[in-house]
């Protein structure tokens, strides 16, 4: 049976992980490769690296980092942040990433989705969508959630699927950082509306939240950052819990 995926997300700035980590046996908590290896050992199913600086000067640092990750990591990983062109994608994929995640650049120029899918395959293209519930409507936000657009989330998800996206990473800004659970309604609506995998993101605070999102929506995967970084929910505990709750997960 196909398993539901658990995906830790690592924020990268200048080649280092940003948030603090309290893993005791990690040599260098700021080294993304060390942290990634730790997650792999714990049973993460995939990893997402998000370059939050993503300035031009940092692209070289990022590609060097991606090469290093690819040498050390034996599970699939996605790289996102500041990817604006097919040339950016090419650098990241050639460095060894399995997928790229695009967000604002896809909103600005939706054809980019098709161009990446045609050149590297749909499975490479993760379209990340930051969405917020405003005045009774789920709306797409860009530039790290700072700028609202007029695009309705439900319209955008269908469009990105048609354009060739392989997966949708859906982050609810209302829930992100709140630790009160995933945005079940919009995650469910989106996962019902498209025929590509949806990764639920934003709001995970407890193991039960993961159970909810897998039972109440068709999400294929759930992503979280801080609860994994700070060791609040160890991945093996989460997987064991989900397995007892009869949710298909990959246990080690």
């Amino acid at each position, binding site marked *: 049976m*196909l398993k539901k995926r658990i995906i830790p997300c690592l924020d990268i700035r200048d080649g280092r992980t940003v948030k603090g980590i309290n893993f005791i046996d990690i040599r260098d908590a700021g080294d993304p490769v060390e942290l990634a290896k730790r997650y792999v050992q714990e049973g993460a199913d995939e990893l997402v690296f998000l370059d939050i600086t993503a300035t031009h000067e940092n692209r070289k640092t990022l590609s060097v980092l991606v090469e290093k990750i690819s*040498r050390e990591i034996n599970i*699939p990983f996605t790289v996102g942040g500041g990817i604006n062109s097919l040339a950016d994608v090419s650098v990241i994929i050639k460095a060894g990433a399995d997928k790229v995640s695009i967000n604002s650049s896809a909103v600005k120029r939706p054809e980019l989705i098709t161009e990446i899918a045609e050149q590297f395959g749909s499975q490479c293209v993760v379209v990340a969508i930051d969405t917020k519930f405003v005045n009774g409507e789920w709306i797409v936000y860009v530039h790290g959630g700072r700028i609202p657009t007029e695009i309705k989330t439900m319209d955008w998800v269908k469009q990105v699927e048609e354009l060739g996206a392989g997966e949708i990473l859906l982050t609810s800004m209302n829930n992100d950082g709140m630790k009160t659970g995933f945005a079940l309604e919009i995650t469910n609506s989106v996962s019902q509306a498209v025929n590509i*995998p949806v990764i639920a993101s934003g709001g995970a605070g407890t193991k039960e939240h993961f159970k909810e999102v897998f039972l109440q929506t068709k999400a294929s995967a759930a992503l979280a950052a801080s609860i994994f970084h700070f060791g609040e929910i160890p991945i093996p505990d989460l997987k064991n819990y989900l397995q007892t709750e009869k949710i298909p997960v*990959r246990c080690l």
Partner: protein
Amino acid sequence: MQIAIIKYNAGNIKSVENAIRRLGYECMVTDSPELIRNASKVIFPGVGEASSAMQYLKKHHLDTLIKSLTQPTLGICLGQQLMCKYSEENDTECLGIFDADVKKFPPEELVPHMGWNNLENLKGNLFNGISDEDNVYFVHSYYAELSEETIAACKYILPFSAAMQKDNFYATQFHPEKSAWVGERILKNFLEL
């Protein structure tokens, strides 16, 4: 031991190369017939589309070369599909090493089949140390049907060939290079054949 990874117009070669190096072996990525023929192990990887991959192989005479290999040869993902007879993906005649056709998944669930799934009915040395409950990573929209040559099955929408073998030819639909310790063990088993 000389390990050759066949270089052609399909992606994902870097990951395979890295996985082999992690196991402590050296390898070369090459399209030289001589180097491929003289290697002790050959890996035929691939992420991409069947018809353009076959066209490329034919143009570079790699199609007849691959079929004529006598050393252990491992096809991965598209590699397995190209080793079958025929693929529905753009109506493509393939290498015909395995007596099976490649079909598109009916859209009863999400397609592609993407993520970790467990293997069933394991046969042979490739799976030493691996059990039916172990999960490997898949990404594919087309599948090889079950055949006499199936050495591992997987179920998604329907049962299909997760791995195949005929004589010296081995193939996996999943990505051993992306399947954590299970994949590493399978690659190690192949390299130790």
